[in-house]
């Protein structure tokens, strides 16, 4: 079964969705990501959905849930690269993803994530070497 890879970068986990999400894949990603956050004691998750051009209510809710669950496990989540059509669909579906931070590009998302994690720890946001 195909999986969406979760890459570890220091204290951050990087997920880029490159295929069309379907329900099973989204749930597999959710399980996988939570497991990895716990194992690596990750402090931040960057979820890039710039290749995603179709969402339904289930996928939308699942991505929102992933961010919420990561929060519970102590990791901040930033969703990046959402396409206009996807944003419009989510708004029309009434999903506002309260508490999920977003950024236009992966680069800005990473900056934001480092700032968020840095603020939480009360120190500099740069990941340790």
């Amino acid at each position, binding site marked *: 079964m195909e999986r969406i890879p979760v890459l570890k970068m220091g204290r951050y986990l990087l997920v880029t969705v490159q295929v069309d999400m379907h329900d099973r894949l989204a749930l597999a990603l959710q399980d996988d990501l939570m497991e990895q956050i716990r194992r690596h004691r990750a402090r931040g998750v960057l979820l890039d959905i710039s290749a995603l051009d179709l969402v339904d209510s289930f996928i939308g809710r699942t991505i929102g849930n992933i961010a919420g669950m990561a929060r519970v496990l102590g990791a901040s989540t930033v969703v990046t690269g959402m396409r206009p059509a996807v944003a*419009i669909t989510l*708004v029309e579906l009434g999903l*506002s993803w309260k508490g999920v931070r977003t950024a236009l590009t992966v680069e800005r998302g990473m900056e934001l994530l480092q700032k968020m994690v840095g603020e939480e720890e009360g120190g500099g946001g740069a990941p340790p070497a």
Partner: protein
Amino acid sequence: MAQNAYSPLAALLSRHEQTLLDDWVRLQLAGAGRRDDPTVEREVREQSRRFLGALQRALASGSDDIRTDAWGDARAVLTEMSGRRARQGYTPSETATFVFSLKQPLFERLRADAKDPAALTEAVWAASTLLDRLGLFTTEVFQRDRESVIQRQQQEMLELSTPVVRLWDGVLALPLIGTLDSARTQVVMESLLQQVVDTGAGIAIIDITGVPTVDTLVAQHLLKTVAAARLMGADCIISGIRPQIAQTIVHLGVELGDVATKATLADAFAMALRRLGLTVARSAG
């Protein structure tokens, strides 16, 4: 039965094609009052000639239903003619007269050729109903063409009225003018979000100085746009809120949530610059 009713007509058309054409064109030009213009005459003659040809071919097929394939040619000629006239600004009656004016020369021919009154009545009736249907078809096509022109203009107006302006590196402005309805909000939202992607702007200012009234629906549309932009990672500031509109918003109990609002575009721009960490300073001297 149908074939019998139309066969005298078909025979007559092929026998007298040239005289019919001449009479018909003369009649059309006289009615239109544009006899002097040689280009109009040429065009009318060409259209009439093609229509008579197509009509003959269609009648030869024996089918009396103008929606069938046999009538495809005749329909194409009429569609082209009415489309051209719709663009040239003819009235619907002028366009429909193209077909209806064929009745007079046709009936005259039928009468001249007729041998017994019963057959004449039948032939006239058949020709009359046929031309009526063709005339109505022409009017319908004409109407459809005009409607498509109107629709295109509406679409163009919609696009014209929603420009997205780049104020600064990373700051977009969307001056809204006119009433916001669902269709317009959709266009506004799409063009704003597309610009956010294209320019990579992190802040978008929606200026509603030109929006005459804000009711709950308009407010909801605005909030949707803001929410969509936020999902993509861009912040929105709503500016240009006039005092009356501020009162209306509060009276209606519209919850703007944590959306930043400013009275003027200048204030919003200043706020955007501050968020980007930029300052505007007077040059020394």
